[in-house]
């Protein structure tokens, strides 16, 4: 059955927001764990979390200091931050609510349930003691939704838009983590705690175990970057996400019109390499990749949603 353009857009954003909530919670949890592991002699900063989520300016407009309390609250539950976890889940719910008739009923219930949980437990996500419990619940709900969609939803156009949104958001988050954390680590060179920190980068994308299995060697910054960008088997690598986007678009009407745009994103991703000599170069390359992804996002929206008159 024909899928309304408005509903397609709501599915796309609904899935992006759910993925954003899950990815943010993973990054926050992994970063907290790394800082806890590092000895007190090492200077630590919570600023990278703001950089990864691209919310530094917004944060500073509302807070005087950048410390654990302000950053975590800002990323989890601050009404001033439209991308915080509570707001992302609320936005996903609002979008999927108006697309409810095309979703399996259980899928909507998970999203609703997730919203009720984060809205009622926002302070749990902030407090260090309960933060990981909150994170586990958000991740579990997001995975529950993923499972329902996999197991109960026909591979129709509505499904494709959900998966497009998910893959776009994943590619975006992986790119951001590379641009901020990896670039900073490359810049700081051979620190004694580099290994712990690279493990943190991998953990924030739930990639540690798969990386170790794939490389079968000690952790090395260059190969981590290469893995997160180019590994074809790991589902959160940029290339895997792009592959999923390309395949999904091919199953949609007029998807061929977007082929040149996606080809350009592939080319840009291929140029970013783990051989980058310095952090600034990696940072600049991931910036280009970010813009290419933003361009793809706009092209998807204008092709399928257009301008409503």
């Amino acid at each position, binding site marked *: 059955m024909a899928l309304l353009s408005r509903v397609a857009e709501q599915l796309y954003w609904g899935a992006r927001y759910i993925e954003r909530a899950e990815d943010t919670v993973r990054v926050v949890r992994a970063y907290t764990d790394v800082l806890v592991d590092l000895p007190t002699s090492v200077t630590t900063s919570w600023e990278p979390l703001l950089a990864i989520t691209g919310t530094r300016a917004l944060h500073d407009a509302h807070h005087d200091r950048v410390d654990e309390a302000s950053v975590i609250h800002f990323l989890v539950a601050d009404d001033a931050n439209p991308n915080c976890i509570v707001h992302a889940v609320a936005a996903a719910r609002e979008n999927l609510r108006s697309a409810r*008739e095309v979703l399996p009923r259980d899928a909507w219930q998970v999203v609703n349930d997730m919203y009720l949980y984060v809205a009622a437990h926002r302070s749990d996500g902030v407090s260090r003691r309960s933060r990981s419990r909150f994170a586990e619940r958000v991740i579990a709900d997001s995975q529950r939704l993923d499972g329902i969609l996999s197991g109960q939803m026909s591979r129709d156009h509505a499904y494709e838009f959900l998966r497009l949104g998910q893959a776009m958001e994943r590619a975006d988050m992986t790119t951001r983590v590379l641009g901020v954390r990896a670039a900073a680590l490359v810049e700081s060179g051979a620190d004694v705690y580099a290994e712990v920190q690279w493990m943190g980068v991998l953990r924030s994308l739930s990639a540690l175990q798969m990386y170790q299995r794939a490389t079968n060697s000690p952790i090395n910054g260059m190969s981590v970057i290469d893995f997160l960008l180019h590994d074809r088997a790991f589902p959160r690598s940029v290339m895997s996400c792009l592959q999923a986007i390309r395949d999904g678009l091919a199953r949609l009407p007029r998807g061929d019109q977007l082929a040149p745009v996606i080809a350009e994103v592939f080319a840009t991703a291929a140029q970013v390499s783990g051989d980058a000599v310095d952090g600034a170069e990696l940072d600049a390359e991931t910036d280009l990749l970010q813009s290419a992804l933003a361009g793809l996002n706009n092209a998807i929206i204008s092709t399928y949603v257009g301008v409503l008159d």
Partner: protein
Amino acid sequence: MTVTDLRVNAGAYDELLLPDGSAREHAQVLVNTLRRLGVDELQARQDHADLDILTMGITFTVYSDGRGIDRAWPFDVIPRVIDATEWRHIEAGLTQRLRALNMFIDDIYNEQRVIVDGVFPIELLEGSVNFRPECRGVRPKYGVWAHISGSDIVRDFDGTVYVLEDNLRVPSGVSYMIENRLISKRAFADVFEQHSVQPVDGYTDELFKLLTSLSPAGGSSASVVVLTPGIYNSAYFEHGFLAQRMGVPLVEGRDLFVDDDNVVYMRTIDGPTRVDVIYRRVDDMFIDPEAFRADSTLGVAGLMRSWRAGKVAIANAPGAGVADDKVVYAWVPDFIRYYLHEEPILANVPTYRCMYPAECQYVIEHMAELVVKPANESGGAGLLIGNRATAAEILERTEAILADPRNWVAQPILSLSTAPTLCDGAILPRHLDLRPFILTGATSYVTAGGLTRVALREGSLVVNSSQGGGSKDTWVIETQPGAASPTTAGE
């Protein structure tokens, strides 16, 4: 705590209990169960049900500070039970009523025989706010305009069932009827096993069949959509529910457009896609800014053009509300006799029409025993309940009636029936009504039971969910073995 003393209010008819507090025959198993379970267990089941409602996202929207707020649907776990034999009678009465009402609407927009023959006064049509001249000359399929209706029925203290209102425009509540059953089956699985309760789940399938049958193109498949005003509408939950159950798109006005060929299209990722049937949940004044309110952003410009050209079917048809008005209501028994040559099966509440001097005289002399209503306002505005009014209010109303008699009608004060309801850890009698849903097309269908709405406050007769009303699952129970019959009444 045990439930030994189920109370009945003096002067009201209880749906489950006899005046001495013992169970009515059809409610025996349920009442025994209530007694056996006790209040604590019932409260536990109520809490489970409330949690289910919350997590399933069964909500309605109320307005506060200009924002729509989602509220969990209020549900009382104790069901309301109706005997199937009585239900068959009510069902036949509703079917009959809707046939006559549809014949009236079709007549009024076409030949107007009912006026020519002196049955219905032309002045009423001229004063009707729901008459749409834009609909003159249109002949919808099967002569049916009000395809989906939700009549409100009540029971007076002597047990008589009355139709209080025929909601022919965009009646809501059917999704809650279906959800209530789902919740109630979880709460009372043990009781369901002991009863033959008629299912209510078939409604959406019947609705889909009806809508498909309206397609101007004919054939067994059609492009059907549900048109909603959007997420801020109080019944948005229901619009999504019905679209989901029928597997059809839920559209907003901005998703549709009418092209130069007068065909309605929806904007899809495949490009414009033709729409054959629109189940609209937007009031007809808002469906087409070209024909009605120009400031409406909820509608589709050109929709009336398309409908008049026979390119799209709209349910309910624009203009169907002409028969849903407090004055026209008084003529429904006459319509049944005039169009069907039958006697009405269900009682109409006796309605005194002040436009007639003799009836006006009666209203003025007996105002303390009557409810006086303005003819064309909804939502209880301007309602005067005689036995609760002061002498000054009665005097004021008398002057208003004399100044503009055509704008007033009056009815005897009915006492709504009650049923045992769980209220803060006690089981108390509370007033209720019933909204069955009737589908009319080539054939008719009536839901088995309907949505029971209950006033949760003591003594209150206000059952609206926006004003503190709750709801109950409604069981139509077969007490005569082997008498079960399908609920579809073919015409």
